[in-house]
């Protein structure tokens, strides 16, 4: 934190930038660290502020002193050019370990300072927290009010303009609700077993038989193999010309997978989904269904 605020050039010829948070407190920070934040950088360049305590740059309201400290730690590490990607990643993983409340504050603050890499990092962390949890668990983690009535949870998502498509959807939902009510009458126990909260969303997502699929049952399928780099014929070249045929798999033979010599190169799946593969393999599909079975490619 800052002390006697005089704009004296320190002996080691470092220059500092002065920042003021919404609560009035002022900090000074090494210039190169502060410049890592686009918003601060712009302020310095455009308005010339920040060079002394009296002209400290006012930070957005969402940035409080302790969060600012965190952000500056992040900037201080990453602004050093020589670091390897691995080092950066390791730092990020450690950095992101904090309670949910702080994580949200950090996201908000980073966004207001336009520090996109940090926003990306915190968003992914928040997504990881949300993923796979039931609505109750999420509400508890983030202190969300459970302010939807049971009926509303089943209600279709109404569009203000009352789109005819939505009306159709409403009719379909009404039918579903009726079914559920009837089921209730017949067997109370069964209905209780279902998570009330999940019902409407499950309706949404599995219209036909309203089955309550567990999100943890998501199976990480093997990525489809598309050769990128090693296009060499160390795999059998005999199947070079039979690409077409290999595509036509019989539907009734999901396990049909003749000599698969495909190399293990990823299909271009978005890297973000690949971060969250902590699923159990609930349905063990055969290890096959790799349509891309071209040997020679």
């Amino acid at each position, binding site marked *: 934190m800052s002390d006697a605020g005089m704009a004296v050039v320190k002996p080691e010829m470092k220059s500092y930038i002065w920042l003021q948070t919404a609560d009035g407190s002022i900090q000074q920070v090494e210039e190169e660290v502060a410049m890592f934040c686009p918003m601060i950088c712009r302020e310095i360049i455009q308005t010339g502020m920040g060079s002394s305590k009296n002209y400290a740059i006012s930070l957005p309201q969402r940035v409080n002193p302790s969060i600012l400290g965190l952000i500056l730690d992040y900037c201080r590490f990453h602004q050093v050019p020589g670091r390897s990607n691995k080092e950066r990643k390791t730092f990020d993983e450690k950095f992101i370990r904090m309670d949910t409340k702080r994580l949200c504050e950090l996201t908000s603050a980073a966004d207001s300072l336009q520090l996109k890499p940090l926003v990306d990092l915190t968003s992914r962390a928040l997504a990881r927290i949300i993923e796979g949890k039931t609505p109750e668990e999420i509400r508890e983690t983030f202190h969300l009010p459970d302010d939807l009535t049971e009926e509303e949870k089943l209600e279709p998502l109404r569009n203000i303009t009352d789109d005819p498509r939505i009306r159709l959807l409403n009719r379909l939902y009404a039918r579903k609700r009726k079914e559920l009510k009837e089921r209730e009458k017949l067997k109370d126990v069964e209905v209780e077993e279902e998570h009330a909260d999940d019902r409407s969303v499950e309706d949404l997502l599995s219209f036909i038989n309203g089955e309550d699929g567990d999100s943890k049952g998501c199976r990480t399928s093997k990525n489809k193999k598309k050769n990128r*780099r090693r296009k060499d014929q160390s795999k059998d070249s005999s199947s070079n010309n039979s*690409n077409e045929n290999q595509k036509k*798999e019989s539907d009734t033979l999901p396990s049909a997978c003749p000599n698969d010599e495909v190399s293990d190169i990823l299909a271009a799946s*978005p890297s973000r*989904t690949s971060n969250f593969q902590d699923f159990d393999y609930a349905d063990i599909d055969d290890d096959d269904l790799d349509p891309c079975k071209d040997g*020679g490619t």
Partner: protein
Amino acid sequence: MDMELDRISSLPGHVVDQILSVLPIRDAVRTSNLSRKWRYKWSHIPHLVFDTQCISITSEDQTIVKNKLVNIIDHVLLLHNGPIYKFKLSHRDLLGVSDIDRWILHLSRGSTKEFVLEIWKGQRYKLPSCLYSFENLIHLELFNCLLKPPLAFKGFRNLKSLDLQHVTLAQEVFENLISSCSLLERLTLMNFDGFTHLKINAPNLQFFDVGGIFDDVSFENTFLLTLVSIGLYVNGINDRNVSRGSSSKLLRFFVNLPHIRRLEIQSYFIKYLAIGKIPSRLPKSCVDLNYISIRINFNDLEENSVAFCLLRSCPNLQEIEMLGRPEEQAAVGPLADFWGDDHWKCLFGQLRLVKIAGISGIGSELDCIKFLLSNSPVLEQMTVKPASSEGGWELVKELLRFRRASIHAEVIYLEP
């Protein structure tokens, strides 16, 4: 108080979009049940990804699975509210052709910028004509599709990245597609049919990655192309070309690649380059080329000539990789003294790393290694990996003898 503690609901919209976009679609949509504020948050997410990881449907019956999937996608698309920046569909149980047509039509009314479609099973899926009206498309990725654009198609004006694998399209369609997408920077083509002449006219192309069967490749206007990786998956040159006494493919290949930086010659592509007269050196050196990888049969004279010509013409190489084709080595007798000739002096002033693999320790391979070692004064490391462990010891004995121009060079023998 709950209001105090609930930090996440008040995050700015674009941040919430970002968080929800990263979630599998199921989790994202489920957030609509969290609280009043969260009811419609998911409906603005800009990325929609429907793949086998995101949607799990447990059922034995293929029809049920397919129907469920179709319903899910229908629902999400209908309830979604806002622009869809990226759409990816890649589910292995998806078979409904008319459903996909419908979804593409829906997307074509918006401003989708990235579109990825992977058809896992069945025949090539013929893309509906409305796909070609995606004005804002920046990235297009297709797997197992058939492209037949309408005659009026003038290309994707904003397309920067194109990835086509297991596709069918006619020759003119291909040429028009490439030349009309003038902003194209990255092109990947794997396993294609319907066209055999790779005519690449792309002024902004930087990255070109191709693997398949073709007769000819020619570049035009490709002065920005810096990374090329080519694999020709068929052994045996088309006799037509040879008998026509065609001009040197090698020369033609490089004439429009002045700034190439990385080159990978894979599968049998080197045989293609051996067609026509093989010069001893390219007229203009590839001064920017710093990495080369060549799959080569060390027993074949023509292939060796091509490799040699290339190496002589790239003075600034920093890394070389040469991979033998083990199944071919025994076919022809070993090549006598090609690389060993003392006339071929060459200086690799920047060469630091060499990788040799798939060799069996015969004459011309060793000559090549010797040649590289004695012409690379700043070499730091060479790794040698034989194709099999037979003759490994002999190989090592030979390697031990070779003179090295660089005192820092390590020659490392790797187990096969």
